[in-house]
């Protein structure tokens, strides 16, 4: 018995030992409850994943939603506590690491620690992720009802939420990478949810592989940083690499490769990781295809949460990025190009979800270049965000508002799809009669994304444009055009769905899907309408100090008018059924076609993978293995056999011949040892 207790003790000691590094007594006694936020969805995942299929098939949705509700309440409570009670010390929002334990120690100082990092952006993200996720959970109760793998669906949602929350809370860059990968896999599972559909299978594979490729960059970036900084902890990392004259910074600056410093390389590589998840050009190809997943999933993953992981990553590493001008430029240009590029494609697409996907990509491009243009002043060595840090706040703000209205757009689209059982715009039209609530909420979202005041998007986009304007005129102009395009394609979508031709609805339609589907729409619509009035600069800034966001009404004239222009163009073209769009498309033949075919990026990828990777690398490798390496082995065997066959004549069966060989052997040995080998 004592043995058993001892063994149990050791097992506990070995397997469950969590070594706490620090639990900061920061005034709230809520520290441990932070862990509950990600762990509750994870518990849901385990519960539903292991037992869902057999035992709790029907109540799966309720259980998962309830768990997430607790999480959401907790995160909002924590956001409240952080921003309004304990977060601000001496006028600055602090970074806290209330919980941390060493998970895997590579070498002295370099270890993967699991911890919780509390700072403005993580708290903001916690709230937004849990909130959107909760909305999606609720929405799915109706949307996915009757699906064969209902519990599995919720299990995957739980896993995803868990991973995303873990990513957000990460206190260690490797921890972030770990959850980053988990996010990737949950998105794989969710995209491939309809696993019987070959297109879904292809899409989930593509999503995973493309982001994996990007993650390679992230990983290498981590390796470089860890080598130079000797740590993986975010706080220590920032501390070591941003202090002028520190040994680590010196080594990161001085070791160069292809003309760029290690720091720049690390930042760029990490950004590539982020670009993969955030679908920046040219790693965006997975995003449109990922729309094969259930629509609520698209709302969750491809609108509000996962795709902004890249933005979050760059924001998290912002102090380090800001140490490298090259990296900041890289971020800026990739961001702005992706924004424009995606907007152009979005104008031509006919699949409702794809349009939304490209719009997501475009909006994330906005966030990215906003981060990029908020580079710090490095001239005198010390950090100085003043004036230029505006982009950071703007990006975070836009992330926040975008999450809300993009989720709303997707859920609205889901509602439409639920009703019409098709993704194609050509099957839709005139749905405002059938889907009144959806119509209104969708319109609000479209206005928000187009940047029409006073909806949420207006404020955040305004700040981004302002930051761009202060940085470089070129960026500003492109951004402006893109925002016009945004308004155009969003309203193209809106009019094509809800106006345009009248759709004949066959038989008895089942309305808007009931309370469970409408509640999230309404809640999100309220958010999309009013979230812009939050004084974001008071909470989230690059350096933690609240920043006064000055509102210049003169400056807004251009963006608002270009947005309105876009809206009216869309209205003119699409409000009623006519042949103007076709005519325009025909007149822009080549461009239209290129845009419609997503500028042939997919084909390029296909060429690279199928033709080059498979045919020029994989096939030769397999061939080489089969014929050369294996051939060598077989050749050895065959040669032995062959020699064996060739020398059989010695054993001729003639006894006299044997004697001749005998004598020859004697003479040979004698000659060798008398004359040659003395």
């Amino acid at each position, binding site marked *: 018995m004592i043995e058993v207790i001892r*063994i149990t003790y*050791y*097992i506990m*000691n*070995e*397997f*469950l*030992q969590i070594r706490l590094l620090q639990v900061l007594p920061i005034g709230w006694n809520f520290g441990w409850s932070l862990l509950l936020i990600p762990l509750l969805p994870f518990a849901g995942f385990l519960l539903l994943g292991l037992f869902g*299929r057999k035992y709790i098939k029907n109540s799966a949705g309720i259980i998962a939603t309830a768990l997430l509700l607790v999480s959401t309440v907790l995160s909002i409570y924590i956001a409240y506590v952080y921003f309004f009670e304990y977060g601000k010390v001496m006028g600055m929002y602090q970074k806290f690491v209330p919980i941390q334990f*060493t*998970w*895997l*120690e*590579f*070498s002295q100082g*370099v270890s*993967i620690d699991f911890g919780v990092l509390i700072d403005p952006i993580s708290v903001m993200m916690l709230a937004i992720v849990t909130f959107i996720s909760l909305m999606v959970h609720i929405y799915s109760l109706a949307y996915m009802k009757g699906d064969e793998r209902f519990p599995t669906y919720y299990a995957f949602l739980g896993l995803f939420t868990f991973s995303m929350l873990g990513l957000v809370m990460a206190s260690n860059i*490797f921890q972030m*990478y*770990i*959850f980053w*990968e*988990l996010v990737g*896999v949950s998105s*794989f599972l969710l995209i*491939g949810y309809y*696993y*019987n559909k*070959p297109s*879904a*299978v292809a899409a*989930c*594979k593509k999503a*995973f*592989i493309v982001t*994996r*490729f990007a*993650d*390679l960059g992230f*990983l*290498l970036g981590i*390796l*470089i940083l*860890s*080598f130079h900084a000797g740590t993986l902890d975010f706080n220590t990392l920032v501390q070591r690499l941003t202090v002028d004259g520190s040994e680590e910074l010196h080594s990161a600056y001085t070791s160069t490769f292809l003309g760029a410093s290690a720091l720049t390389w690390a930042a760029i590589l990490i950004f590539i990781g982020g670009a993969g998840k955030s679908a920046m050009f040219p790693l965006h190809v997975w995003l449109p295809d990922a729309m094969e997943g259930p629509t609520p999933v698209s709302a969750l993953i491809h609108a509000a949460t996962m795709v902004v992981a890249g933005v979050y990553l760059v924001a998290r590493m912002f102090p380090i990025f800001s140490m490298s001008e090259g990296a900041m430029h890289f971020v800026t240009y990739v961001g702005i190009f992706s924004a424009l590029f995606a907007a152009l494609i979005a104008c031509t697409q006919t699949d409702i979800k794809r349009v939304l996907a490209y719009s997501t990509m475009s909006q994330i491009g906005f966030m990215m270049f906003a981060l990029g243009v908020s580079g710090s002043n490095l001239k005198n060595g010390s950090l100085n965000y003043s004036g230029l840090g505006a982009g950071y706040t703007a990006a975070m703000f836009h992330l926040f508002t975008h999450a809300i209205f993009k989720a709303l757009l997707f859920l609205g689209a889901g509602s439409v799809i639920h009703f019409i059982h098709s993704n194609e715009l050509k099957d839709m039209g005139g749905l405002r009669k059938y889907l009144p609530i959806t119509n209104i909420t969708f319109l609000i979202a479209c206005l928000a994304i187009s940047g029409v005041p006073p909806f949420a998007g207006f404020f955040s986009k305004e700040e981004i444009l302002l930051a761009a304007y202060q940085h470089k005129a070129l960026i500003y102009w492109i951004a402006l055009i893109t925002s016009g395009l945004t308004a155009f394609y969003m309203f193209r979508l809106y009019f094509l769905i809800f106006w345009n031709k009248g759709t004949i609805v066959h038989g008895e339609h089942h309305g808007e899907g009931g309370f469970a589907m409408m509640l999230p729409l309404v809640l999100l619509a309220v958010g999309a309408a009013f979230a812009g009035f939050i004084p974001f600069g008071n909470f989230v800034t690059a350096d933690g100090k609240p920043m006064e966001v000055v509102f210049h009404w003169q400056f807004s004239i251009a963006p608002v008018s270009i947005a309105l222009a876009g809206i009216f163009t869309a209205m003119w073209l699409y409000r009623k059924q006519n042949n103007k769009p076709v005519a325009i498309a025909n007149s822009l033949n080549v461009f239209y076609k290129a845009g419609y075919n997503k500028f042939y990026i997919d084909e390029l990828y296909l060429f690279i*993978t199928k033709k080059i*990777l*498979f045919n020029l*690398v*994989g*096939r030769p*490798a*397999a061939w*080489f*293995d089969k014929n050369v*390496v*294996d051939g*060598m*082995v077989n050749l050895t*065997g065959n040669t032995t056999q062959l020699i064996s066959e060739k020398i059989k004549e010695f054993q001729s069966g003639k006894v006299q011949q044997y004697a001749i060989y005998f004598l020859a052997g004697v003479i040979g040995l004698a000659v060798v040892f008398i004359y040659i080998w003395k």
Partner: protein
Amino acid sequence: MNLILLILLPLLTAVLILLMRNSQQVKLTALIGSVAQLALAFALLLAFRNERVAGNEAQMLFELQYNWFPAWNISFHLGVDGISVAMILLTSFVVIAGVLVSWNVTKMTKEFFFLLILLSLGAYGFFISLDLFILFFFLEIAVIPKYLLIGIWGSGKKEYAANKLALMLMGGSALVLVGLLGVYFGSHQKSFDLITLANTHIPVEVQKICFPLLFVGFGVFSALFPFHTWVPDGHSSAPTAGSMFLAGISMKLGGYGCLRVATYIMPDGAKEYANIIIVLSTIAILYGAFATMMQKDLKYINAYSSVSHCGFVLLGIGMLTKTAMTGAVMQMVSHGLMTALFFAVIGMIYERTHTRQVNEMGGLLKVMPFITTILFIVGFCSLGLPGLSGFVAEMTVFMGSWQHPDPFHRIATIAACMSIVVTAVYILRAIGQTAMGPLKEGYVNLSDAKWNEKIAAIILIGGIIAIGVAPFWLNDLIGPATQIIMNKLAAVQPK
């Protein structure tokens, strides 16, 4: 904790199996024996931790030494450190899973289980021996059972594969033998004792000759490029449990030997040839991965991916840093569990669909959710998903590899890192084609896993997750042991 038990237990099981009358008894005996092995391995782990916690800092614990052939200075010297304990745990996991998945073997059941247990005997003996002679003895013991397992119970080109495997492995062990003899005489100790040799400075010229012999010799077991060609054929032809043992245990013998024997006792040689090792293992990693992409047979897929994954083991060893070496050992454990599970799943699928060609399958998730879920898990482990063991091991190797600032090591590391993308490609391709997509006709009535398969899978997954979620215990186990090897390496003057 008497280490002899680890040898006696499988021996006893094997003898009992031979005495049993019918196949049911044989299976039960094998199962009980393997459960006992698992219990023993855990007991060893706990006892080991107990000693360490109690402050026993000796390099090897539970040492035993009996004189055996005193004329040659051979002694039956046993002892374990963290690495051995980890490998023993791995072995016991794979053995029990192997026994369980072989529950349906009807052809010559007695012989089958006898050979399986014999194979485990060889592995245990190998991992606990501190005398190179008995190490070699156990290394070779494990070869012939593999040959017979493949040859008798295998499928496809089984004779060819069995022959190739046996001959290549014997070739490897022949090189090992010559290397060992070189050390034996070259060290002027006339001793096979690992500790004695490690405490001796073997002349550098001897190391330069013997290190490659030993490393390549063991490397053959561990699929060192270009001596990996037995792997695909052998694995694909072997019966399920055979593949599991082969990839899960046998390939680890090589990695363990490279680390414990070659690198540990000959640090000069290791430094001399480190670059070559790195080049070869990087080639193996990438090349294995690319070759896997082109495979259509599930077993070939896993076999080539084993080449790729075992490359990490050798890369970790070749990098000669503590972290990388720890990663190499972790990768051995991780890959052992993972690949055993992978082969188990393949076996289960094959038993039902009677094909291993991925393009002949599709949508199996619908009819056998349990099995395909395992396939997903093992696939994710293979492509290094966090939370599963593969990630931990690979990341440790990468971290350790990146410690060298010079471009050569950097490029090797980057190339190795690239394999995680390629791995994702082939794993997803395989999973996508088998588990997902429309269900093919004729597969509608297939059944899901049975109890034995479920238990086997759960045991292995338990191991994978235990490492993936809580790698620190494995790290704590291995770390001090690799530190000793590193100390020995560090004591050597740099070139």
